[in-house]
């Protein structure tokens, strides 16, 4: 696979070259924190951004997706018939996505891209997008990607992996799409052995600097679903939760959504909006019956889904969590997923 070295004083040129053929999204400082935004010039990229507040899942699974339009006007022979809203799936690059967030996109693929049904917007955006990951030399203290099956230098989800080697970036193509992108970049130089060694050293340092949570996820995978569901520790875990939905909205692997119709003066549209299992309305039946009307049930659902149901359903070894730490940082009441998972795993150990 193609490798190249792009000195930092040439990186803007490289980004400009990407922008010639693609719409490029990158972390841009907006107020006090960063979010992925479309670039109008390479200088907007903040290369020091540790990670964005909202995950890049919003670039594929938009917060509010207009699905269909329809007319409701009485004289219109097509009234009441839904028509797909036009979309733009031109080629895009998501630049400086962190390995955790890129891996998260793969974890979400199993939901939107199934043998029976394919979500057209997710699938087409994924197809049109080249992911250029930026390895984490300095993981945050709340990151735990290494404990959930990925890592600060994990290339699993990206098409190109960039590593900040000090004076420049090493770019390595990981997929055919990545190869195609690097072919568009003229500002690259060959990678020397010295730089390659430095990258290895950075990788090792990043991986060891992250606290290993010693999460024994196998224990959770092996435990019976109903037993884990009925454990007593959920009583303690759930109390502080205010069901605010912050965790689900910031999480790169949360995908739940709602479908709403909105009408204005004879025209309407069907929308898809992010939704959250944290809200009681999420599971409320029209009859008034609600399978998860208690807060404990909703809190338990989130963790069970991410660390148990997902593993069981998709028969995978990795949970629906990439350790990005956003929920840890932003939960207003400090419910710490690392603690909850530790308790889930601990409950699986029978007292000797």
């Amino acid at each position, binding site marked *: 696979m193609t490798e190249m070295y792009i000195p930092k004083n040439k990186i803007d040129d490289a980004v400009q070259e990407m922008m010639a053929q693609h719409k490029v999204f990158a972390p841009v400082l*907006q*107020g*006090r*924190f960063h979010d992925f935004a479309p670039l109008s010039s390479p200088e907007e990229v903040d290369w*020091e*951004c*540790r990670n964005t*507040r*909202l995950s890049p899942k919003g670039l594929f699974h938009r*917060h*509010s997706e207009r699905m269909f339009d329809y007319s409701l006007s009485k004289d219109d022979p097509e009234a009441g018939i839904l028509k797909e809203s036009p979309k733009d799936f031109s080629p895009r690059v998501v630049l400086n996505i962190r390995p955790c967030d890129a891996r998260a996109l793969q974890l979400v693929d199993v939901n939107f891209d199934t043998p029976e049904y394919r979500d057209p917007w997710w699938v087409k955006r994924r197809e049109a997008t080249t992911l250029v990951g930026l390895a984490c030399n300095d993981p*945050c*203290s*709340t990151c735990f990607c290494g404990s959930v099956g990925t890592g600060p230098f994990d290339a699993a989800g990206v098409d190109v992996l960039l590593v900040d080697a000090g004076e420049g970036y090493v770019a390595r193509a990981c997929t055919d799409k990545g190869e195609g992108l690097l072919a568009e970049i003229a500002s690259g130089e060959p990678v020397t052995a010295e730089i390659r060694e430095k990258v290895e050293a950075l990788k090792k340092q990043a991986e060891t600097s992250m606290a290993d949570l010693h999460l024994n996820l196998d224990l959770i995978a092996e435990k019976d679903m109903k037993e884990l569901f009925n454990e007593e520790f959920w009583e*303690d875990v759930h*109390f*502080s939760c*205010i*069901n*605010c*939905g*912050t965790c689900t*909205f*910031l999480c790169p692997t949360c995908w739940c959504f*709602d479908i*709403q119709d*909105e009408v204005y003066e004879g025209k309407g549209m069907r*929308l898809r*909006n*992010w939704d*959250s299992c944290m*809200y009681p*309305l999420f599971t409320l039946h029209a009859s008034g019956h609600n399978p998860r009307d208690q807060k404990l049930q909703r809190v338990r659902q989130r963790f069970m889904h991410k660390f148990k149901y997902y593993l069981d359903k998709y028969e995978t070894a990795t949970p629906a969590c990439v350790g990005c730490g956003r929920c*840890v*940082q*932003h939960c*207003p*009441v*400090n*419910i*710490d997923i*690392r*603690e909850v998972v530790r308790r889930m795993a601990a409950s699986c150990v029978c007292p000797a």
Partner: protein
Amino acid sequence: MREYTEKIREAARRLLSEKKVDAVIGFRKGTLPFMNEPCIVKHADQADRLYWDGNCGVNLANYLAKRADRVAVVAKGCDSRNIMVHVLENQISRDQVYILGAPCRGMLDRRRILAELGGKDPLRVEEQNGKIHIEGRDFGLTLNREEYLQENCALCTHRNPVEYDELVGELVEEQKDVDRYADVREVEALSADERKAYFQELIAPCIRCYACRNACPLCYCPTCFVDESRPQWVGKSLDPVDTMTFHFLRAYHCAGRCTDCGACERACPVGIKVRQFTKKLEKDVLELYGYEAGLDMNERPPLDTYRTGDPEDFIK
């Protein structure tokens, strides 16, 4: 304020073993610097979980509405006012709640402190004598506590609990000559168009997560108006008009009830200054009706009752 920890633990042990309450709601030490987690303790031997320091900004009154058991709650000034509001609004009865009053010198604004660190991770934090000592992997920083209080705490005029059964610390001096509404007056001075632009910019980052609503002790409606479908009052997308409708209406629903505890702003994941909506109404209620929420259990809130002297100049 960490001295309170011992008093809280002692009180919890006593109240639980004497069966005066079924549970004690307080905080336990958080897993992150500058954060603590609300927790409930139901047995005297769990009392040592409880903890208190300058990072207890969450309003514990949020956990009280419609409870059926008897609980003790650690309450700062603003929290105690919200408990009073709950009692006034029949969400809980006064004798169900044993208030452990915690006089407060203001809570730290975690986000502002983190912004000060420029992306570096704090690993250890200690508060001492009005200073915050922060240590990270390769840095150390000391800040003045007074400069990094939550915005509502900096302007607080009710640091002492207004109602309590027992104090867990000495009463503190209330701040004097505090101009609570300087920022509101600035917005009031803008033209209508400027104000519209101001508010549009204020809520532009809103992701409709409703963290503000859920953190607020006043928002206890079984079905929030945004979740109604018959009729549907507000759309659920990021449409700016719908988003403004949500924030404005929520603020109006809090008018005459809001104690400016700051829980909404603390909770917002995208850093919106949510209090800009509620403070204007707080100012209006004070000026029109001379009323501050949650101070007097024997006075009905202004939107609940009518006095002959109420202003009428809006009736044309």
